[in-house]
């Protein structure tokens, strides 16, 4: 070991506990005292102090971002319900909940689960579909444009780096922002205004995604003041991969080839930075700037090399840069890397900066020596820089060399498995939910509420964003994000469908992508929030024609600090819901990610985000012709509601708009819901359904309105015909006197769909639905009048579909 002027020795062997902690903070290592002591002890055995690059490598590899220490660590969980406490210890929360469900379900069509850069399910006998969703929250809070652009760039590289590389077919994005109309004076110092963040984030995703030639087809946005300082930016990519390209294995003697962008100082400490809370002094070097043109060239060239079987493994440089990528690929073999060979943007970088920089658009390949010239030739033909910087060894050590000096030498075993398991405590008190006082409204008040709900930020049209994204590029988007008569008259689609006919010749199969997100429910009941997100993602997919028997889901937990007992307790509750719902719906998780420490400190007071679980769903539909959209199709056709309406206004948009504190958060009833979803698939497969839309935010009133105004049609709905179930009683009731018309119209009960049926198909449709709860509630009108009527309660709400459309369209119209 030799230290050059650019490589320092870090003296830790003699440090006391307090000094170890100070060292971790000073160098932004985000390592706990226990972890620092394990490092100290390792180097004591080696009888030397570590170099700066060794300490940085360990910090990156052991970061929360890379190791998911909270979800895989030990959690001593206490739950209190009705004064009674129960305790449970999780040795690995992820393995005992989310992952456990997938293992127990053991679906043969799941080809790669939680072990690579993305999850993969079977598409057909020769191909798989890969899907990954990532978060890029902290960078987007500091630099919205660059942060979100590199968010989408990073997740695209995850798809390029799964197996031997998948071809990206579609992007998704989901955002949570503060109120864009927030008064400037109320925005804390050092925080960007939510509108500025939103504009920057949308532009970043737009510019990167569009320039990559990948359509952005599906997404969601949630607004809540809790996200003012900590916006959430989820980016997802789906791609297709031949089954024989899913496995990768590095062999000793393979060369380490770095391909794509040059390395600069951008993104230093990104991985460890994501484990700390933001404040106004947060570090500039954590900001990454993306260049989609380079990534596009990498994409095109690497797939060419893949198809010629020229390399044995690939992964992307994400958090931790070369450190994580090469460390990961060389875990079972060992690697020696010559850092002075890494192409740099400019001079002056220290070796440790080169090693952990998160400069974008870089991929690392393991290439057999005999193929190296051919691989480099393919990249250079398209002006993509490809440089050999080392080789994979058989000594199971990570060796870093700079200017002929060995500046790091560590065991891969210590690096990857040496991190001590933290033990955290978690507590959750189950709160009893209370049904709100009956919401009695006259026709005028219900009408005004409907308009307010359509205009609410969490319901209104996101056209301003959707139209900035190219959702048509590649020409395979069959079901699009906005659906309706024309560009001016459209409504929100439930899910996107991609028909990959240009990649897989003569196929009839297609891929459905959807999502579920309910942060408002999470404020009251994290278990129901997680369960609802899972159900909603499946419901959205089923609404366009998906078969839930061929669907898989991805989890993305965004939470506050796990150091807070109750915050961690709510996370445990959510993971429990993931296990329960995955098992009950028989839908496995195939990939996931967590982003913790989403909190901001102002004047030493900490503000945590409302916890949220994003569920992204993917499925394969057998026949692309059997898919449906949400706008009504023809006057005279019948309208049905499928599923039970319960008195569930807790966390609903209606409660927020009307300032109703109480209310039961919508629950999930998997047995009835799963059965309904399977029957809808059968009905769609037999071409019995003309239009289908899921009931979510805003309930039946909003869903029916969206179906009507997107078609420029009217509809008459009989509120008295909607079947309800009182939450307070065990038995289903067809008599809906337990709920007021407003509660029936705006309840957000899960498991419901609005369906349009031709009168001729009614009999066949009812036969399929036999045994389930459904009711005919009205018919479609050509006169463009949207009417909700309850004779029993003397209610008649009437609006023109055009007026409702404009109420929905005009909120975000920048």
């Amino acid at each position, binding site marked *: 070991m030799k230290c050059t002027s650019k490589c320092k020795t870090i003296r830790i062997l003699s440090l006391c506990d307090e000094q170890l902690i100070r060292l971790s903070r000073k160098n932004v290592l985000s390592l706990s005292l226990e972890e620092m002591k394990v490092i100290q002890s390792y180097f004591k055995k080696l009888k030397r102090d570590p170099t700066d690059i060794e300490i940085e490598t360990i910090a990156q590899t052991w970061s929360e971002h890379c190791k998911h220490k909270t979800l895989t660590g030990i959690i001593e969980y206490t739950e209190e319900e009705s004064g009674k406490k129960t305790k449970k210890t999780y040795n690995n929360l992820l393995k005992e909940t989310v992952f456990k469900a997938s293992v127990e379900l053991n679906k043969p069509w799941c080809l790669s689960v939680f072990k690579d850069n993305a999850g993969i399910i079977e598409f057909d006998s020769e191909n798989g579909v890969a899907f990954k969703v990532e978060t890029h929250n902290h960078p987007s809070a*500091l*630099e*919205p*444009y*660059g942060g979100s652009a590199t968010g989408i760039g990073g997740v695209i590289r995850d798809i390029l780096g799964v197996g031997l590389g998948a071809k990206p077919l579609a992007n998704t994005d989901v955002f949570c922002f503060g109120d864009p109309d927030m008064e*400037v004076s109320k925005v804390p110092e050092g925080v*960007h*205004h939510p*509108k*500025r963040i939103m504009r920057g984030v949308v532009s970043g995703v737009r510019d990167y995604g569009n320039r990559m030639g990948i359509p952005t087809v599906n997404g969601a946005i949630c607004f809540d003041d809790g996200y003012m300082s900590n916006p959430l930016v989820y980016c997802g990519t789906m791609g297709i991969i031949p089954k024989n390209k899913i496995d990768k294995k590095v062999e000793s003697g393979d060369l380490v080839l770095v391909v794509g962008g040059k390395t*600069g*100082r*951008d993104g230093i400490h990104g991985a460890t930075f994501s484990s700390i809370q933001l404040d106004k002094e*947060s570090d*500039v070097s954590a*900001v*990454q*700037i*993306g*260049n989609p*043109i380079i990534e596009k060239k990498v994409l095109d060239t690497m797939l060419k090399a893949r198809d010629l079987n020229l390399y044995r493994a690939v992964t992307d440089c994400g958090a931790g840069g070369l450190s994580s990528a090469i460390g990961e690929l060389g875990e079972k073999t060992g690697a020696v890397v010559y850092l002075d060979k890494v192409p740099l*943007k*400019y001079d002056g970088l220290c070796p440790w900066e080169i090693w952990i920089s998160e*400069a974008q658009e870089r991929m690392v390949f393991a290439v057999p020596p005999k193929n190296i010239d051919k691989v480099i030739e393919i990249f250079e033909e398209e002006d993509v820089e490809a440089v050999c910087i080392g080789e994979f060894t058989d000594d199971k050590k990570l060796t870093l060399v700079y200017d002929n000096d060995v500046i790091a030498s560590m065991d891969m075993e210590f690096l990857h498995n040496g991190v001590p398991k933290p033990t955290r405590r978690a507590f959750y008190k189950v709160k009893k939910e209370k049904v709100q006082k009956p919401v009695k409204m006259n026709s005028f008040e219900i009408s005004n509420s409907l308009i307010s709900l359509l205009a609410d930020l969490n319901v209104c049209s996101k056209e301003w964003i959707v139209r900035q994204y190219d959702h048509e590029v590649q020409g395979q988007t069959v079901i699009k994000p906005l659906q309706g008569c024309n560009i001016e008259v459209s409504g929100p689609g439930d899910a996107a469908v991609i028909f990959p006919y240009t990649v897989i010749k003569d196929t009839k199969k297609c891929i459905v992508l959807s999502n579920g997100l309910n942060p408002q429910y999470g404020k009251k009941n994290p278990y129901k929030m997680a369960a609802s997100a899972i159900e909603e993602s499946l419901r959205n997919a089923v609404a366009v024609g998906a078969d839930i028997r061929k669907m898989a889901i991805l989890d993305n937990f965004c939470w506050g600090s796990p150091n807070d007992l109750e915050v961690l307790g709510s996370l445990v509750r959510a993971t429990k819901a993931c296990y329960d719902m995955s098992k009950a719906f028989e839908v496995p998780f195939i990939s996931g990610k967590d982003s913790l420490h989403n909190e901001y400190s102002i004047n030493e007071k900490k503000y945590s985000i409302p916890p949220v679980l994003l569920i992204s769903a993917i499925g394969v539909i057998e026949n692309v012709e059997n898919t449906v959209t949400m706008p009504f199709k023809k006057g005279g056709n019948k309208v049905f509601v499928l599923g039970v309406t319960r008195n569930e206004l807790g966390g609903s948009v209606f409660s927020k708009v009307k300032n109703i504190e109480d209310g039961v958060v919508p629950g999930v009833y998997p047995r009835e819901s799963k059965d309904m979803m399977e029957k809808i698939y059968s009905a769609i497969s037999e071409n019995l359904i003309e239009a289908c839309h899921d009931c979510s935010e805003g309930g039946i009133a909003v869903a029916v309105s969206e179906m009507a105004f997107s078609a420029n049609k009217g509809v008459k709905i009989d509120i008295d015909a909607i079947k309800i179930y009182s939450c307070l009683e065990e038995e289903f009731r067809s008599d809906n006197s337990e709920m007021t018309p407003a509660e029936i119209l705006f309840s957000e009960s899960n498991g419901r769909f609005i369906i349009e049926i031709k009168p001729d198909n009614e009999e066949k449709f009812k036969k399929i639905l036999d045994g389930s709860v459904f009711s005919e509630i009205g018919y479609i009108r050509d006169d463009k009048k949207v009417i909700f009527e309850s004779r029993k309660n003397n209610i008649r709400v009437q609006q023109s579909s055009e007026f409702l459309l404009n109420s929905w369209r005009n909120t975000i119209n*920048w």
Partner: protein
Amino acid sequence: MFEIEILTKKDFKDSRGERVLSDICGLGVTNVTKAEYSQLYVVDGDINLSETEMIASELLVDKVTESYIIRKCCAEYCSEVILKSSDAKENDRLNSNFSVIEVWYKKGVTDTVSESVVKAVEDLGIVKEIKVKTGYKYYLYGKISRTILLNTIATKLLANTLIQECKVHCLADKKA
């Protein structure tokens, strides 16, 4: 060293300028009456005026909707004297009453547009070692104090001070 400025022609809609004006109003600053936007490129290296004009006219400007201005620059200062202009009408701007905010990337921040320009200049046939720096310029009309320009408009709207820096030329200062 030359500075190339790309402006929207007067007869065309300057949508970015209009958006900035609307956002300035959103910040509660009501005395800005008009905002105009332009892109800036500083080209440094062994390059002459005619080559710079070729870069401006053949690479950077959309000849239908945009015009360009070329000025002489040194490290810290850019002359107000226009060496070349594709549209003489643009020279009138020098006589108008406006404040200016220029936004540039801080040293060390990746500037992907400049990387593309360097590559494209080579593709144009100008094979010389050059460096390019990119920025934005906002012309703001109306009576605006330096404090509002710097602390509100520049830092809360136009530049992210984490990665960008601003140069502010305040009309009020000039008049004083």
